[in-house]
């Protein structure tokens, strides 16, 4: 049986597992829609199990990263706009928040909303490029956009305080939770992740997600059905970058220091790679990839700049498995009815 093709041998391996524990798999399948919620619940228990504030902050950042990359699936996975700019929107949001709360004494809440609007506008500007160029060339434009904004952040000291980074951010809080308490900061970022995940999931299964899937699948057919492609793509880009802007605001609250280096090419590149490894339109796959990789890279900090290379290696492995490594495993374990909507 396993000699037929590699694919069936892989499946039979999983089927063998399913035969051994039929009850367990049936239960997992039945409650597969509740899995992300379960994951978040487990996440909510983490602060009571982990003593080290450092480890807790790593988890906090992992959830933040997972949130940004989950938002990226809207433009990259559903909108089909292969872009290397998510880190830039993250940065635009972070700088907007930092400047507004520090120099203009806005409340964190209003500053984050402004950050979402500003980053969303940045997304729109990049989406304009998709009117003129496509595919590979669009990637180049977004790359240029990423470099340009990073240079602006580094070289406009009067606004961004330049290369040294943005110090002296006041203590921030939201809904009565303070970012200065590691546990409360953790819950804020966990909540943000849950928020972004829920929004993205709802989008994916609703009006926009379905429309975007068709556009992505077949541009010509979509146009023949009355869909203006730019409008749809631009909307996906604005939502995706706006959510990244919100995450940027939370980053400012969490680490109270930002510098242009955090939002350069490396940041955007790794985010896009996480989305690709995770399977582009598989939200659970993308979110867990970003989460796990952030933890791993933090664990192996001593490797320094090799880490980008490691992520690159993971991509090379991932492209040989259609739809992404993690998504593939998830799909095989949980061939639930919802998976049929994914590419």
């Amino acid at each position, binding site marked *: 049986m396993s000699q037929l093709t590699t694919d069936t041998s892989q499946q039979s391996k999983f089927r063998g597992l399913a035969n051994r524990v039929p009850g367990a798999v049936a239960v997992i399948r039945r409650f597969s829609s509740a899995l992300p919620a379960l994951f978040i619940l487990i996440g909510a228990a983490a602060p009571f199990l982990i003593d080290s504030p450092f480890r807790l902050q790593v988890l906090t950042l992992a959830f933040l990263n997972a949130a940004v990359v989950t938002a990226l699936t809207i433009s990259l996975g559903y909108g089909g706009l292969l872009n290397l700019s998510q880190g830039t929107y993250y940065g635009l949001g972070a700088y907007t928040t930092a400047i507004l709360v520090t120099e203009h004494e806005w409340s964190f809440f209003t500053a984050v909303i402004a950050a979402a609007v500003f980053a969303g506008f940045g997304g729109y500007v990049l989406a304009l490029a998709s009117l003129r160029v496509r595919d590979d060339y669009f990637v180049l434009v977004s790359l240029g956009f990423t470099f340009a904004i990073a240079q602006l952040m580094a070289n406009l000291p009067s606004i961004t305080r330049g290369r040294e980074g943005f110090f002296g951010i006041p203590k921030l809080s939201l809904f009565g939770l303070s970012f200065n308490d590691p546990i409360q900061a953790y819950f804020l970022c966990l909540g943000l992740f849950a928020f972004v995940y829920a929004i993205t999931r709802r989008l994916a299964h609703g*009006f*926009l997600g379905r429309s975007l899937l068709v556009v992505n699948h077949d541009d010509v057919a979509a146009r023949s*059905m009355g*869909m203006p492609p730019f409008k749809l793509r631009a909307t996906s880009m604005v939502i995706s970058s706006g959510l990244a802007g919100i995450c940027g605001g939370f980053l400012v609250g969490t680490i109270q220091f930002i510098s242009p280096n955090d939002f350069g090419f490396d940041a955007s590149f790794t985010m896009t790679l996480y989305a690709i490894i995770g399977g582009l339109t598989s939200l659970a796959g993308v979110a867990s990839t970003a989460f796990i990789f952030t933890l791993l890279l933090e664990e192996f900090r001593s490797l320094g700049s090799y880490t980008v290379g490691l992520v690159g290696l993971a991509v090379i492995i991932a492209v040989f498995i259609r739809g992404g490594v993690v998504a593939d495993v998830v799909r095989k374990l949980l061939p639930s009815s919802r998976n*049929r909507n994914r590419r």
Partner: protein
Amino acid sequence: MLHISNITKSFGGVHALKDVSFSVGDREIVGVIGPNGSGKSTLINVVSGFYRPDGGDVTLDDVSLVAMAPAAIRRQGIGRTFQNLRLVEKMSVLDNTIAGYYLAQTGTRSLLWTWLSELLFLPSARKRKQEAKRVAREALSRVGLSEKSEMLAANLSYADQKRLELARVLTLPPRILILDEPTAGMSVEEADELIRTIVDLVKTSDNSMSLLLIEHRLDLVLDVSDRAVVMDGGAVINDDVPAVIAHDPEVRRIYVGGE
């Protein structure tokens, strides 16, 4: 209703369409026939906005369509299918149809607002979702796919996939339905059945729908259409009722002599 007047289109040195003119009236079924390379598909692409003609005009109810984008032309009421299948294979039959309805709506709505209303569980979003399902189910029942609405598009037979494309167009009822060789690659029985469904659709539609049918099977076209337009080498060589076309020696030369 639909007037195609003096359309010319060339690609480099190749004159794909030379001064093509004809019109399609209310509830009329017009067949376009001609050998491969006679310009039939180019003509459809001009009418549906995918190509811009070098000269001439296309009007629907006196509104000129030539400067419009494909999406805008679709909303004006020109619905088309393609020669090859253009479905999302991994979505169910119903989801494909719903997507067709949604896509037809995207042109006229603020997408950000639509998304927000859905996100906030506003009643308008729920109503829209129900409406989409209702329209999609109705379109599926009109093409005879009600029973198969939960199947994946990929698992349908070829003939049923063609029907699904038809249902998708019907979610925004077109004034003019343009079908590009809908029966290509089908058995004679399947083709006859599909054509019967299509003709039925046009005859029983609530709004006045007309049909522009591109076909290479001469017998089918002459059988069902009210008028047939014969194209050869990018030009219209005859435009008349089927009885006349059937006895046109030029048409016989193209079809019989060519084979």
